[in-house]
């Protein structure tokens, strides 16, 4: 499957984790990597171009930090403009039917702040309900977030390398169509159950 990563980070120069994840995604030849803030520094999103790009891919990954339980502004702008009526939704909008949408995110807070007993009072996945519903309205499948918690400490705690490898693994598996989508849709976080959700590599002939 053709995978595109839409990377949205207004200050990627300050991010250790997102930059590393972005570099991993960028390095994969079968992934289309788009740095949204680089392409649209003025928020002047080229809707036609973005829609064409969507049509050319089967998997759309939003990669971004979590800002106020959501995504950075430009990615929201992207949704507002690109997911048009008549294209993505509405009685005639079927362009995205069957495609996969997911979020790959970094959070400042630790894993234990999420969940019903944590300070945030909800699972991280719950905060992504708008993305899930957006995907469904566009007749897409949505997968739970792949998350790096306490991103500010990932490097010094030695977690970064493993996370980057896992991300690469996820993108590869998506490209090779080796994700158990039915199970994946039901897990809490993709990053926590990744091993169980990926099927072993298929013989080369079947690789998309």
């Amino acid at each position: 499957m053709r995978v595109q990563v839409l990377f949205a980070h207004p200050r990627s120069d300050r991010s250790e984790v997102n930059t590393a994840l972005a570099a991993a995604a960028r390095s994969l030849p079968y992934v289309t990597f788009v740095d949204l803030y680089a392409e649209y520094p003025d928020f002047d999103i080229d809707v036609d171009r973005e829609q064409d790009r969507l049509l050319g891919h089967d998997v759309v990954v939003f990669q971004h930090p979590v800002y106020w339980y959501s995504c950075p502004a430009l990615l929201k702008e992207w949704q507002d403009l690109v997911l048009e009526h008549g294209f993505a939704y509405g009685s005639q909008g079927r362009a995205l039917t069957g495609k996969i949408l997911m979020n790959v995110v970094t959070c400042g807070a630790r894993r234990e702040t999420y969940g019903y007993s944590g300070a945030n009072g909800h699972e991280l996945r719950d905060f992504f309900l708008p993305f899930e519903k957006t995907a469904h309205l566009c007749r897409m499948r949505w997968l739970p977030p792949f998350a790096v918690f306490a991103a500010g400490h990932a490097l010094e705690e030695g977690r970064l390398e493993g996370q980057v490898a896992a991300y690469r693994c996820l993108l590869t598996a998506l490209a090779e169509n080796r994700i158990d989508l039915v199970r994946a849709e039901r897990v809490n976080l993709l990053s926590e159950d990744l091993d169980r959700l990926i099927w072993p590599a298929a013989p080369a002939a079947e690789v998309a």
Partner: protein
Amino acid sequence: MELLAGAFIYLVSAVIAVPLAHRLGLGSVLGYLIAGIVIGPAFGLVGAETEEVMHFAEFGVVMMLFLVGLELQPFMLWRMRAQLLGLGGLQVVATAVLLALAALLIGLTWQASVAVGMILALSSTAIVLQTLNEKGWMKAPAGRSAFSVLLFQDIAVIPMLALLPLLAIGDPTPAHLGDHGHASGIAHWPEWVQAIAILSVIAGIIAAGRFLIRPVFRFVAEARLREVFTAAALLLVVGIALAMDAIGLSPALGTFLAGVVLSDSEYRHELESDIAPFKGLLLGLFFISVGAGIDFGLLFGQPLQIFGLVLAVMAIKLTVLLALGRAFGLPGSDTWLFGLGLAQAGEFAFVLFGVALTGGVIVLAEAQMLTVIVTVSMLATPLLFIVYERVIAPRAAVGVTRDADTIEEWGPVVIAGVGRFGQIVSRFLIANGQKVIVLDHDPALIEMLRKFGLKTYYGDATRPDLLHAAGLEQARIFVAALDDAEAQTRLVAHVARTYPCVHIIARAHNRQHVYELLEAGAHEVEREMFESALCAGRQALVALGAHPFRAHQLARAFRRHDLQSLEMLHEAWSNGGFDQHYVAAARMRYEELVRLMGSDRSDRHDTSDRGWTPPPKGDAAS
């Protein structure tokens, strides 16, 4: 008719010889000189009147100095004072002393030696300034130094005129009663009255330039008759020349002063373009008359002696000039330009020899011989310029540059031109901690920017050696921000050719210029007015009641469409400039734009309006 016939001969010779010389790369001065030789000594078409013609044509030098003054603002003159007095003063004194000693050595009387030394120390303002201007060397260090020296020499003529009669032996006839037009009308007044007269004329020129000339020109300009303005400009120059002549000062000096006073007036460019053709013609006439005036009989009578003396004079002058050039820190090849350029004797010599002869300081044979020497040295000057241009300058360009000392540091960004455009670019980059080298050839601007702490280097950015000195090889980015569109295109082409690794961002004057710059090799081109005009348009929409964000959006759509058009029309332009195909294509794009900008506002789903629109009422959202 005789006058017309004479004019015809002069014009024919100039029209043939000058373009030919130019085509051969010899420069116009040599062309005129050759034309003069052809019609004078060679074919004898003109004869005795050449001397008269020369005196008349010397007025071209006066006009030239007026024009030079126009380009020099008073503070620049003030900044040149060290060079003017130091370099100029030392050149005149040292050369005069050495030449006088040499003259003494070959057996002239001491009085004649002093006179000859002083007179031959002067160089030819006409030839040198004309050539420097023509070759664009005026703004190079050598050009500015040469100009300082020439200006000082012009001033030095005044004490020389006063000194020559004092050298007179046994002949009480005051030299200034001679027939050369330099006789001062106030010479019979007491000296203190003369001094007052001189000071008041100079003060008068400055005061008139400041307070009187502007309103007068405004009055004349309001008549909107071009030729009257030209007449007024000529009147100004002629009037000043007459006033200076009346008090025994050099007319050239007076008009130069007037030029400086008027250099910041709004009529500067108009005056320049009015006077320039007269100056050009008169100077050409002057050069022709120099060529025509050569005494070939004398020259071929004693060729070895004359050429030997010419060589000796020029060698002495060259030695002094080279030494001074080094001492005053001129960069390598510039020293040679400075030295070779000023090594000849000048047209003032013709006048001063006349004065010396009248005063009995030198005898007729000596005066004739000296005049030939001066003429031959003037003839040799264009050849020396050619030697410099073809032999010395190219060698210096390949050799190790010493020019880097004028620019003390190198940066990853070089910006050419720091006017309204380059200024913002450089301020922005510097504010972001980038090391930027800024070049501009407007000293006033540089002065001002330096006051604000923006380090700018003086220099004509279209000069290859300056770009090299600015370290363009080490730079990553070159921002071409010149005001002059043509110079800008040439500059970009040169940089793209010479420094292929440098990323070029260029300021464009208009759409056509965008294409020219792209074809010259610019990587990015920005129209200088586009963004600001669009901002103004957006503000107008807001003032008309549009929502600010909507106005912003529309401006954005306009910009995108315009940039697309710019790209699409490039081909149409390349195929034939602004021809009918281009116009047709451009009109089509424009009509599309009007459609796009939402002329049909009832349809909420047209292409321009597609952002943030709710689904149509008939179609359920889910």
